[in-house]
């Protein structure tokens, strides 16, 4: 199956290992992955901050870049949500877009991806994956099938971490108060790794954990799923 990757500007720039992990995972599952180099940003920040016209041009650019593909996958619930749910609100219709866990579980029909990740992990479901896309427990089903992985339930998992794009800047204090409660829940699990399907939320919670030297590592779901016993993720090149 041929699939195009929307890496998202944040992951492309700050977390390239996540995008590499998606490539490795999807290729291992028999997909042919394309990365159209003309892609930039889906326009979510502009849209959510009130800059409609800019968001709309970026949406149109997206549809040009990805028009030839039957399946587009993004390792981000919020960017996938932007394309699938918000573009139509702006009168722009994009082709099929999947968040990574949806694509693997629904389209490829796989829950055991053959991964190995021997760590204590907790999972934050992220608001847009949960409530905009409705991915449900797909990420958890994928994680439960990972060998060696000890999954610990995150208390108050569905509560927002306080990121919200420019919300974290415009209402920095409120955002921090939300983040504090999220970090407390993460620390309560005793997990060594915090995972999520969206690097923006992980950057936020991870940024707070790092500031406190909390000793918990944020790792995107894709990197856990890409990791195998033969080639553990940290040391691997796909």
């Amino acid at each position, binding site marked *: 199956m041929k699939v195009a990757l929307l890496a998202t500007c944040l992951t492309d720039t*700050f977390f390239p290992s996540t995008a590499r992990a998606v490539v490795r995972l999807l290729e291992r599952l028999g997909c042919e992955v394309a990365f159209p180099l003309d892609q930039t940003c889906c326009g979510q920040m502009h849209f959510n901050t009130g800059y409609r016209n800019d968001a709309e041009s970026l949406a149109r650019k997206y549809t040009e870049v990805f028009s030839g593909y039957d399946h587009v996958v993004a390792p981000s619930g919020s960017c996938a949500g932007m394309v699938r749910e918000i573009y139509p609100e702006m009168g722009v219709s994009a082709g099929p877009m999947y968040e990574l866990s949806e694509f693997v579980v629904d389209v490829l029909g796989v829950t055991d991806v053959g991964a190995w990740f021997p760590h204590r992990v907790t999972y934050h479901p992220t608001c847009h994956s949960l409530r905009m896309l409705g991915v449900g427990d797909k990420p958890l089903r994928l994680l439960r099938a990972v060998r060696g992985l000890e999954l610990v339930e995150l208390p108050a998992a569905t509560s927002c971490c306080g990121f919200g794009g420019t919300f974290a800047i415009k209402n920095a204090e409120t955002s921090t108060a939300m983040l504090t409660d999220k970090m407390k829940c993460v620390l309560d699990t005793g997990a060594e790794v915090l995972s999520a399907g969206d690097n923006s939320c992980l950057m936020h919670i991870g940024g707070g954990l790092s500031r406190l030297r909390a000793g918990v590592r944020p790792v995107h779901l894709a990197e856990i799923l890409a990791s195998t016993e033969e080639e553990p993720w940290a040391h691997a090149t796909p």
Partner: protein
Amino acid sequence: MGTRNPVTWLGSPTFPKAAREALADTQLRQNLRKATGTIRGRRAAAVAEMTDWENLRLAGEAIKNDVLSRLDTLLVQLEEAVTARGGVVHWARDAAEANEIVLRLAREAGTDEVVKVKSMATAEIGLNEALEAGGVKAIETDLAELIVQLGDDRPSHILVPAIHRNRSEIRDIFQRRMGISVSDEPAELAEAARRYLRQKFLTTRVAVSGANFAVADTGSIVVLESEGNGRMCLTLPETLITVMGIEKLVPTWQDLEVFLQLLPRSSTAERMNPYTSVWTGVTPGDGPSSFHLILLDNGRTATLADSVGRQALRCIRCSACLNVCPVYERTGGKSYGSVYPGPIGAILTPQLVGDMHDPLSASLPYASSLCGACFEVCPVRIDIPQVLTHLRAEAVEAKGRTAESIAMAAAAWVFASASRYERAQKLGSLARFIARDGRITSLPWPGSKWTSSRDVPAPPAESFRSWWRKNRGS
């Protein structure tokens, strides 16, 4: 218009400013954490009992949309029905007009005191203050509203206006204002309020209420409450004045049935509402002998004209969106500068004010992380995040050129071309040289707002796209 809409409190700061103060109030934080946490769990349980909840929500949405699409004819139908049953209908364009009518009616009834049923519409128009200025005292009879009134305070929640107060704070207010000695046991506090109010119910000749619903078909007005104090106000006085937002209509009794299921479970997590009072005009020998219905616009017609924003008029004031909102839970209701706090306040208040040049109004749509918890629980399916981003666009337009708009335009220009984006990426990745141990702990404004509590990961030397180009060619 000319006069300012009292839906926002005079002199209120913008949301981020007010929130900063509220966040530092540890007592408030504790009270809110406890209260919202409890009601959240109870609502979820009450809703989980219903197998057809999602269908009920769809029905609620559809009925309200139908009402909004033919509000003009339904309102006339209501007016005719109420008039035919001996009521008097008044139309008020704004708060000032509505307040004037109530004041005039109170004076005509020869009273300088009115008892009040808890109502959002009268709070929205600042009725109590307007009456007081005209020499008429308004006495709130809802327990939580009474606590707010006696504490010279402001409401912070739609259903429980004193949610920010705990038991011992309430005891202090009662002792101070009623001149009594009382413990902080809920039963004793309720008893103190009961004694204080009973006298008022028996002697006051005029009552003022709001309305949860009005059935256009028959002209019946419906009020839901939990304490029975509202029922006293609605039945004992000679004159009853009801102030109702024009959107509170339902076409028929059959439509009402949907909301009598949706509202209690969403609001108080009850299966059935304890006190549901319904009256139609006047009934000789039973209840008030004179009934006035004031139909209030106060920004609603303008809201109705906005194809995205109008869904806020479906709201049945259940407070479910407040109770689940992570922002509300931490900042409390008063930070929103209006009687309408929380997610619904963030979309309704700016629309009722109707002026995005107003700094508070322009800040409210940003008082959300767009997490969507509000939309998920809203019994009439108001897509609050959608309206929030819609109003943000209006706020941006009203502001014109700002540092932010210039930065956003620059970012859009960069993103418009993959090669410009890549050059910016390479330039940005130089920030890795200011990082220590892979993290950046301090950035200049506005990045400082982020780094005040969060690190930024150092951008790696190689972006994904350069890796791809190197390893995969194209």
